């Protein structure tokens, strides 16, 4: 899964308020900065240039592309929002969206559940084994997604794979991991394999930051280790969990690499299997860069809306509790 810079990462005020250092107000350095606006601007300039060159201009260009249509026979003409109207009524895009949503509804809770369980276990166990396990769990994340997908392609193989023939040991039929009914599960497994360790480490790091006194207090109050885990630790790292969840939601909406690679093995992965794959195929297979740009923007907008809604709901919930 391709993870991009989370444009809608939880706002800074979402994090626990840190005590503002009072003495900073009286620091004289502030006045000095305002006294040299040119110097300040120069420091910012390289960053600004990179942002403009590699974010603003490409996005602007893509948006401009999405407002016109270049048909093979008629050439380019300005069509305004036509491409967007087409996108939101395109059954292939909607099918792909529905598939990705269905995928996410199952895969995200499963993956984050395992990651959380793993993180809590790691936090509770302090042997040398835990250190090794942390490394091992993190390792799939270090494997490039393309390589991971290829590897699983072979593991799923009916001829070479170790799993396909397992049911035959008890007299069942061999499993076809690429069949229409199992394909989403097979893909979900690859994604879970690749990202669980990553999320586990995020949650584990958050757990490390929880003040130990809270546990001591809970122990004194007579809480069992399970109660401590569920009633103290989990609420304490709620922010980290929602951060991991939002990254995962964004990543899922952009689901691309695994289906793209697996299509080499699985004929069931159609051109519009996921919205991102559909945008790719529109541009690079069907030569329709304009519609592809519109699809990408539409998808980006949806990701933004979903991510924002997620943060919003989360904050509301946080305020209530």
């Amino acid at each position: 899964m391709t993870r991009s810079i989370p444009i809608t990462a939880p706002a800074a005020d979402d994090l626990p308020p840190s005590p503002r250092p009072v003495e900073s107000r009286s620091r004289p350095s502030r006045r000095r900065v305002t006294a040299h606006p040119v110097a300040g601007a120069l420091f910012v300039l390289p960053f600004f240039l990179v942002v403009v060159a590699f974010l603003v201009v490409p996005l602007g260009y893509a948006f401009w592309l999405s407002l016109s249509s270049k048909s093979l026979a008629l050439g380019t003409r300005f069509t305004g929002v036509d491409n967007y109207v087409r996108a939101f009524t395109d059954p292939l895009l909607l099918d792909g969206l529905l598939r990705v949503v269905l995928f996410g509804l199952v895969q995200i809770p499963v993956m984050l559940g395992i990651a959380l369980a793993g993180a809590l276990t790691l936090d509770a166990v302090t042997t040398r084994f835990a250190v090794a396990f942390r490394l091992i769990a993190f390792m799939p994340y270090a494997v490039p997604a393309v390589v991971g997908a290829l590897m699983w392609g072979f593991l799923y193989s009916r001829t070479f794979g170790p799993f396909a023939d397992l049911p035959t040991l008890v007299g069942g039929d061999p499993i076809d991991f690429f069949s229409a009914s199992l394909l989403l599960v097979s893909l979900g497994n690859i994604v879970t394999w690749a990202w669980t360790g990553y999320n586990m480490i995020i949650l584990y790091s958050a757990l490390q930051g929880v003040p130990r006194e809270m546990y001591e207090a809970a122990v004194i109050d007579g809480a069992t280790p399970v109660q401590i885990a569920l009633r103290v630790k989990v609420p304490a790292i709620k922010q980290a969990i929602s951060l991991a969840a939002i990254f995962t939601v964004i990543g899922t909406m952009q689901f691309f690499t695994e289906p793209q690679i697996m299509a080499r093995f699985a004929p069931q992965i159609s051109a519009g299997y996921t919205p991102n794959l559909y945008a790719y195929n529109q541009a690079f297979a069907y030569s329709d860069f304009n519609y592809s740009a519109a699809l990408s923007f539409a998808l980006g907008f949806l990701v933004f809306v979903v991510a924002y809604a997620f943060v919003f709901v989360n904050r509301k919930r946080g305020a209530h509790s």
Partner: protein
Amino acid sequence: MLGTKWTAKLRAGLVVAGVLAAAACGGAADNADGPVRVSVWAWYPEFKAVVDAFNASHKDIQVEWTNVGTGPDQYAKLKTAFTAGKGAPDVAMVEFQQIPTFVILDALVDMGPYGANDDKDLYAEWAWSQATDGDKVYAIPVDGGPMALMYRKDLFDKHGIPVPTTWAEYADAAAKIKAVDPNAYIASFGSDGGWLNGLMWQAGCRPYGYSQAKAKDQVKIDLTAPECEKVVELYGDLVSKGLMAQDKFFTADATAALDSGKYWTWAAAGWTPGYVAGSLKNTAGKWAVAPMPQWTAGADEQGDWGGSTFTVTKQAKNPQAAATVARELFGRSKAAWDIGLNKAFLYPLVKEVAADPAFTGKAYDFFDGQKVNEIFVPVSEKLGEFQYTPFQDFVFKDLNDRTAEAMSGSRQWSTVLEETQKNVVAYAEKQGFKVSR
């Protein structure tokens, strides 16, 4: 990849970024004195030796070759480069079915003015007609894929099953094979648009028609003609009955199945002997090649699967030199064809090379000494005109998606071509074409 797409835009506005992008793109600069450098994108096996042979025999032109990936990978990069207006090579390898697509994208140079019309008689007629449009020469043919039936001679002999000569016999053989070995299949339905297209071609189906020279915005799409339908019907029937496997071609699974006796035949192309000889070690020497089964007993209808050409792109810095490279890399080089035939196993579209006894009389160990080109060469000579649409990627992808639905049981095989026809026509009309049948 996206970086190059925007390179042109960046340059206009931002000097700093422009310089960076230019540095990243690199590209061969023409030296004022010294040989002209021509960049080439191609993925032929053993191509390095061909390039070396060219460079050794040309003082004024030197080829700089890059392999940016096979088929779709390279096309994606090419289309990006053409959209950006920058970044394409001077010469690009393009398969036959892609030529109209790149022509309509205005990406290819007409090599006619550079003398390419003189090459007409060098090449198999069907190939030349696909590479050209009137007197416009958009591509120089290199290799082709005349189809024939590869089969496991040992297994057919052992079980006394006759090698099919008609498609009806083929269906019979499929049932007999299943009867003698429940784990075996006559073949796999490989989910490959080009392959299915070759089978339809052989059945007399001519679903597409396009000539930019005649009318840029008119295209013929007729996938539901009876000649086309009967192919999908036959294969759909075999798949539904479980007599045909469903592994995608060129996957490790399909190759292993070919190499283990799980598949007994493969309706393959002129380039497949070379492809399989390298990967099927266990069954080498047990295969043979027969002419394609016919729809009518005694007929001689043939089809082609694949094949490729060299094109000169509109971004070529020196089109004259690029055209020379496209024409001479294989076209006029015996050294290149020695490599092409013996190492890369290309099926030559240069008539003289294909007719040479060194090629027709070549015995293949993989086929137990059979001179298989004696079968492929007449097939190539028999191939008539066949055209493609200027959006063949869409057609093949949609065809694959619909057959995949049929394989998974969510679609009737009998509606595959009907649905593809509908989708392709809708796409073509959206692209501004007038569609006829």
